[in-house]
C-alpha cells in the first residue's frame, strides 16, 4: 500500500466551493416554474376560505366563459378518477385516517383545501377565472384547539367519529430496556426531585424559498412530470398507485429545487391535479403556487403539546422520564405525518443515562393545514423538552447547567451504549465537545458578567443557554422502518460510470435541494477512483437517469446515499482489476490500485482509470474473460442509525423593560463524524441554527377563531434575516461513526435541533431571578415581557 501514501486522500476534508452554486444563486437554471413547453397551459386552484364546511354547490359557468379558459374542474368531475392520497406510515395497525382527496368533493377540512381548478392558456387568465368560480359553503364548527380536539369536543371529520388517529406508547419496563418510570417518580417524590412541566411546540411553516411548482407533459410516451420536490422517486410511485398509471409510463424530474426542509417531502394534491389536468386536456400543464398558497396549503410542521415528568435524586442524578404528548396531524395524514412524533420518541432521553422511561403519543386531527416533516421531524421536539428540563433540574439542584449534564451524560468510554429507549449509540464524546465549546464561548467570563448584571440590577440581563444534544440520523435501516409500520425502505442506490474520455458520471438516488451533493459526491468519487474533482459529474433527480433511489430527508444523504456512491465506486475498481491484469499481461494478484491507477507491483507498468476506460470503450484488446464495462451500481441499506451530537452555548441579552431578546454570541461544537466538505457542513450548521433560533424567537403559524391562517404572508409570519442573527462560531470535534465505512454521521438537521432549547434556556436563565421559569415559544418581546410581569407577581 505504499503507493496510496504517495497520493493522500486530498478531497475528503477539503472545503471545495460548491459546483452548483453559480447557477443556484443566480437563478439561471431549471427551476420548475422556468420550464416552458409548446402549448403549455396554466392552472389556478380555487381553495376553501373556511376551515370546516360542507360544499353545497359550485357554479363554474362564469369561469368557463372567461377569456382563455380551457377547463374548469371540480371534485365531483374527477370523483372517479382522482383516487386518494396516501399515508405511508401506520404507526399502529388500526390507525384512523379520513379519506384524503386531492380535490374536495363535498367536505372541506382546512382553509386552503382545493375545491376546484381552472386550466387556461395563460396564468393570468387562470387566476382571473378562478376568482369567478362560485362555491357555496355551509360552514361547520372547526376543531382548532389541540387539547380540546383530543377530547373530541368538536370533530374535524364527522364521518370519522373521533379526532384521535392513533395512540402509541413505549415503556422501558415493558420493553426490557429499563425500569418502571412510575416507580422512579414515586421514589423521587420522597426526598428526591420531581419536575413536571408542559411545553408547547408551536406550529411552524417550512417556508422554503422556491414555492412548489409542477409541470406535466402528457404528450410523450412516458408522461413527464417536473416537480419542485425532495422526493421524485416517491412521486413516481405514488402517481402510479393513486392514478392507476403504469409506473413504467411515468418519468419524474426534480430539476433544481429551491429548498425543502421537509416541506417538499410529500406527495401533493397539486401534483395529482396537474397530472389529471394534463391527461384530460392532452396538453402540457403547469401549476405554480403563490407564496400565500404555499404558506397556507403546503404542509406545516411541529405542533405538539408535551407533558413531561422528570424524576431525579436530590443530587441531580436522573432516575426517570415520562412523556405524554399530543401531536396535531392537522386535517389529514400526509406521507409520514403520523410518524413525526414517533421519530422523536427515542430521543427524549437525549445523551443521558435515564434508568426508566415512558412515552405516550396521541395523534389528533384538527381543521388546520396537515402537518408533516419539518427539519428535524420529531427530534427537535424531543431535544427541546429534555434540554429545557435539564436546565430546570440544574436550577432545582442549584448547580451549573453544564455540571448537571455532565453528571448524567454517557461517558465517552461507555460507548457503544444501549439507551433506555432501545437505541444503540455507537459512538460519541460529549466531554470533548463540551470542553471545546466552553472554551470558545468564554463560559466563565460570561457567567461572571451575568453575576455582575444581576447584582447591579441592570435592565438588560444576560442569560446563558446550554444545549447538549444528540439525534438519530441516516434514515434508515429498512428493517427498522418496517418494524415501525412504514411502507417503504431506507436503502439508497448509486451508480458510477467511467466514460471513454476518462470522465466519471455518478448517479445518485438522493435528491438534493440545496445540500450540495454534486460537490460532496464528486469529492468522494475523486478520492476513491483517483480522478480529478472536476472530472466527476453527479446526476440526480430524474427517474429516467437515477432509476432507483429514496431521495433526500432525515440527514440521510451522505450516511446512506454517499456510502452507496462509495460502494459503487469500489465495484468499478473491482471490475477494472481483471481488465487491467489482462491488458498489462500481469497476474491480478500482483496489481495494486492507488492514485487512480492499477500498477504492477515492483514495476513501472500500470494503467490509469482513464486509460482503462478508453481501452474498454474500444474493446479492441479485450479477450472477453472479463466484462468490458467500467460501470457499476450499488444499493446500500444502512446497518444502523448514526448519532451526531454537540454542545451549543448561547448568550442572550434580555431587555427587561421591553422584553426584547438579542443573541449576543452563539458557539456550537458539533460532532458529525468524519467531514467530507467542511464548508458545506458549516453552511448546514449556520442555516440550521437560523431555523432553530427562528422557532425559539420568531416563527409561529397562528390561526384565528374561525381557523383562518392569520400569519398567511411573510408580513405576519416572522422569519429572521441576517441582521437579526449573530455571527455564529461553529466548530467541530470528530468522533467517527462506526455504522458506515467512512465514519460520517449527518448534519442537515443538527443546528435546528440543538439551537432552539439553547436560546430559550438562555432567556429563562436571564430571567430566573425575576421569577421566570418558562417562556412559551416563540419568545416574542411581548411574551417575555408578560413572563417578567407574571414572575414578579408570583
Amino acid at each position, binding site marked *: 500500500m505504499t503507493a496510496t501514501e504517495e497520493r493522500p486522500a486530498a478531497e475528503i476534508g477539503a472545503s471545495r466551493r460548491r459546483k452548483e452554486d453559480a447557477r443556484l444563486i443566480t437563478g439561471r437554471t431549471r427551476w420548475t416554474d422556468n420550464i416552458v413547453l409548446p402549448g403549455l397551459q396554466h392552472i389556478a386552484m380555487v381553495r376553501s376560505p373556511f376551515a370546516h364546511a360542507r360544499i353545497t354547490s359550485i357554479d363554474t359557468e362564469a369561469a368557463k366563459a372567461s377569456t382563455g379558459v380551457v377547463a374548469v374542474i371540480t371534485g365531483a368531475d374527477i370523483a372517479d378518477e382522482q383516487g386518494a392520497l396516501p399515508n405511508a406510515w401506520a404507526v399502529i395497525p388500526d390507525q384512523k385516517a379520513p379519506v384524503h382527496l386531492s380535490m374536495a368533493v363535498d367536505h372541506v377540512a382546512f382553509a386552503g383545501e382545493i375545491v376546484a381548478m381552472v386550466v387556461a392558456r395563460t396564468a393570468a387568465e387562470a387566476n382571473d377565472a378562478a376568482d369567478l368560480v362560485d362555491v357555496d359553503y355551509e360552514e361547520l364548527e372547526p376543531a382548532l384547539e389541540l387539547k380540546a380536539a383530543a377530547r373530541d369536543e368538536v370533530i374535524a371529520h364527522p364521518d370519522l367519529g373521533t379526532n384521535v388517529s392513533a395512540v402509541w406508547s413505549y415503556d422501558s419496563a415493558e420493553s426490557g430496556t429499563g425500569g418502571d418510570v412510575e416507580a422512579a417518580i414515586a421514589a423521587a417524590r420522597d426526598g428526591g426531585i420531581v419536575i413536571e412541566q408542559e411545553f408547547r411546540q408551536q406550529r411552524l411553516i417550512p417556508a422554503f424559498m422556491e414555492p412548489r411548482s409542477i409541470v406535466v407533459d402528457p404528450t410523450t410516451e412516458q408522461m413527464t412530470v417536473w416537480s419542485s420536490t425532495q422526493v421524485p422517486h416517491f412521486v413516481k410511485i405514488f402517481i402510479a398507485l393513486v392514478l392507476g398509471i403504469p409506473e413504467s409510463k411515468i418519468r419524474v424530474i426534480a430539476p433544481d429545487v429551491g429548498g425543502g426542509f421537509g416541506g417538499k417531502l410529500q406527495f401533493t394534491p397539486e401534483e395529482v391535479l396537474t397530472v389529471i389536468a394534463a391527461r384530460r386536456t392532452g396538453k402540457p400543464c403547469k401549476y405554480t403556487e403563490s407564496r400565500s398558497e404555499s404558506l397556507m396549503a403546503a404542509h406545516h410542521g411541529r405542533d405538539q403539546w408535551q407533558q413531561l415528568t422528570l424524576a431525579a435524586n436530590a443530587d441531580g442524578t436522573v432516575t426517570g422520564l415520562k412523556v405524554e404528548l399530543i401531536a396535531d396531524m392537522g386535517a389529514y395524514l400526509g406521507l409520514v405525518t403520523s410518524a413525526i412524533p414517533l421519530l422523536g420518541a427515542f430521543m427524549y432521553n437525549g445523551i443521558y443515562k435515564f434508568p426508566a422511561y415512558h412515552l405516550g403519543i396521541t395523534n389528533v386531527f384538527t381543521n388546520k393545514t396537515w402537518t408533516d416533516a419539518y427539519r428535524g421531524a420529531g427530534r427537535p421536539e424531543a431535544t427541546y423538552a429534555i434540554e429545557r428540563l435539564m436546565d430546570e433540574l440544574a436550577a432545582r439542584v442549584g448547580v451549573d447547567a453544564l455540571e448537571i449534564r455532565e453528571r448524567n451524560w454517557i461517558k465517552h468510554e461507555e460507548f457503544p451504549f444501549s439507551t433506555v429507549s432501545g437505541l444503540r449509540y455507537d459512538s460519541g464524546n460529549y466531554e470533548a465537545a463540551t470542553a471545546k465549546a466552553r472554551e470558545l464561548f468564554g463560559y466563565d467570563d460570561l457567567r461572571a458578567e451575568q453575576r455582575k448584571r444581576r447584582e447591579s440590577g441592570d435592565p438588560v440581563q444576560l442569560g446563558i443557554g446550554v444545549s447538549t444534544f444528540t439525534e438519530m440520523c441516516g434514515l434508515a435501516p429498512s428493517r427498522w422502518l418496517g418494524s415501525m409500520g412504514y411502507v417503504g425502505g431506507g436503502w439508497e442506490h448509486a451508480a458510477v460510470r467511467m466514460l471513454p474520455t476518462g470522465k466519471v458520471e455518478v448517479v445518485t438516488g438522493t435528491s438534493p435541494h440545496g445540500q450540495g451533493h454534486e460537490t460532496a459526491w464528486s469529492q468522494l468519487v475523486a478520492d476513491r477512483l483517483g480522478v480529478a474533482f472536476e472530472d466527476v459529474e453527479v446526476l440526480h433527480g430524474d427517474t429516467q437517469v437515477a432509476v432507483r433511489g429514496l431521495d433526500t430527508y432525515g440527514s440521510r444523504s451522505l450516511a446512506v446515499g454517499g456510502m452507496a456512491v462509495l460502494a459503487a465506486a469500489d465495484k468499478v475498481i473491482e471490475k477494472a482489476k481483471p481488465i487491467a491484469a489482462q491488458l498489462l499481461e500481469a497476474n491480478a494478484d500482483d496489481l495494486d490500485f492507488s492514485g487512480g491507477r492499477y500498477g504492477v507491483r515492483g514495476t513501472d507498468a500500470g494503467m490509469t482509470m482513464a486509460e482503462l476506460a478508453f481501452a474498454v470503450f474500444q474493446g479492441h484488446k479485450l479477450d472477453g474473460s472479463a466484462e468490458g464495462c467500467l460501470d457499476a451500481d450499488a444499493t446500500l441499506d444502512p446497518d444502523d442509525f448514526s448519532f451526531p451530537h454537540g454542545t451549543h452555548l448561547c448568550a442572550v441579552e434580555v431587555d427587561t423593560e421591553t422584553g426584547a431578546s438579542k443573541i449576543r454570541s452563539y458557539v456550537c461544537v458539533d460532532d458529525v463524524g468524519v467531514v467530507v466538505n467542511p464548508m458545506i457542513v458549516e453552511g448546514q450548521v449556520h442555516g440550521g441554527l437560523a431555523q432553530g433560533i427562528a422557532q425559539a424567537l420568531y416563527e409561529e403559524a397562528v390561526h384565528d377563531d374561525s381557523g383562518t391562517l392569520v400569519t398567511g404572508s411573510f408580513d405576519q409570519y416572522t422569519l429572521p434575516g441576517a441582521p437579526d442573527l449573530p455571527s455564529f462560531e461553529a466548530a467541530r470535534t470528530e468522533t467517527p461513526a462506526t455504522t458506515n465505512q467512512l465514519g460520517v454521521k449527518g448534519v442537515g438537521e443538527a443546528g435546528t435541533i440543538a439551537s432552539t432549547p439553547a436560546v430559550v434556556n438562555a432567556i429563562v436563565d436571564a430571567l430566573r431571578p425575576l421569577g421566570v421559569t418558562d417562556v412559551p415559544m416563540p419568545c416574542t*418581546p411581548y411574551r417575555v415581557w408578560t413572563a417578567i410581569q407574571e414572575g414578579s407577581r408570583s
Partner: protein
Amino acid sequence: MIPAAFEYFAPATVDEALGLLREHSDAKVLAGGQSLMPALRLRLAAPEVIVDIQKIDDLRGVRDDGDALVIGAMTPHSTVESDPLVAEHARLIALATATVGDPQIRHRGTFGGSLAHADPAADLPAVAVALEASFVIAGADGRRTVPAAEFFEGVFSTALGEDELLVEVRVPKYTGWGAHYEKFNRVAQGWSIVSVAAAVRLDGDSIAEARVGLGNMGPTPIRATAVEAALVGQPATADAVREAAARAADGTSPVTDINGDADYRRHLATVLTRRAVLAAAGTA
C-alpha cells in the same frame, strides 16, 4: 399571484395625472409601488386604472425654501436618507428613513408614497407629525396645504381626495436640534410594534423645546404633547426624562394583535420615549 387586469397610464406632468384621476373614478396612484404592488398581487386591491406617477420628474428632489425644507413626494427614501439638506435641517427624517424596509425597498419606495399610504405602523407619519410638516396637495382647484396633524385621518386614510395628488411636503427647519428615532420591532425588516420619533433643542443643559411623535399607538400617528410640555425647561437627565416620558401613552388607544396588547404598547411607548428623548438630547 398575478394582479387583476387594469388600465395603465404614466402621465409626465402633475396636471396630466390630475386629469386622469378626475376622468377615472376607480383609479389608484402608483408611486414607488412598495405597498400597492403587494396589494395588487394579493388581489386585495383591484382598481380599474393605475396612474403611475414615476415619470413626473418635478415631484422628485429636496430643496431649501427659506425657513423650510421641501421634499418632493416622489423622492425615493434612499435619496432622503443621504440628502445633505435633510441631514442638516431635519435629521430625524433621515434617521427614520434609514429604518424603512431594506435597501431595495428604500430605492423604490418614496417619501410621499409612504406618507399617503398612511399605514399606522409606518415610520414616516410619526416623524411628520412630530416635526409639524405640512402636506401640499394638488387638485382641480389648484394647491392646498394641510398640516400633518390633519393629514392623517385613520388607518390607510388621509385628507387626500380621490382626484388629488400629494405633491410635496414642507418641513420647518430644525437646524441644530438633536434627533433620534426609536423603532421597536421583532425583526430588522419588520413593521414597528411601537415607534417614537423625538427631536430636542437644548439650551445649555436643559431642554428648550421638544417634539415627540408616536407611531402605531393608534389609527393615526400621535403627537405626544404632554411629554413635550413636561420636558421643556427640564435638564436632559435620565430621571427628568423618565418622569416626562411616563406620560407618553396618555390618551392613546393602541391595537391588540399578535405582537402585543394595548397595555404592552402603552408601556413600550413610555420606555421608548424615554430612550428616544435621551438619545436625541445626546446628539444635540
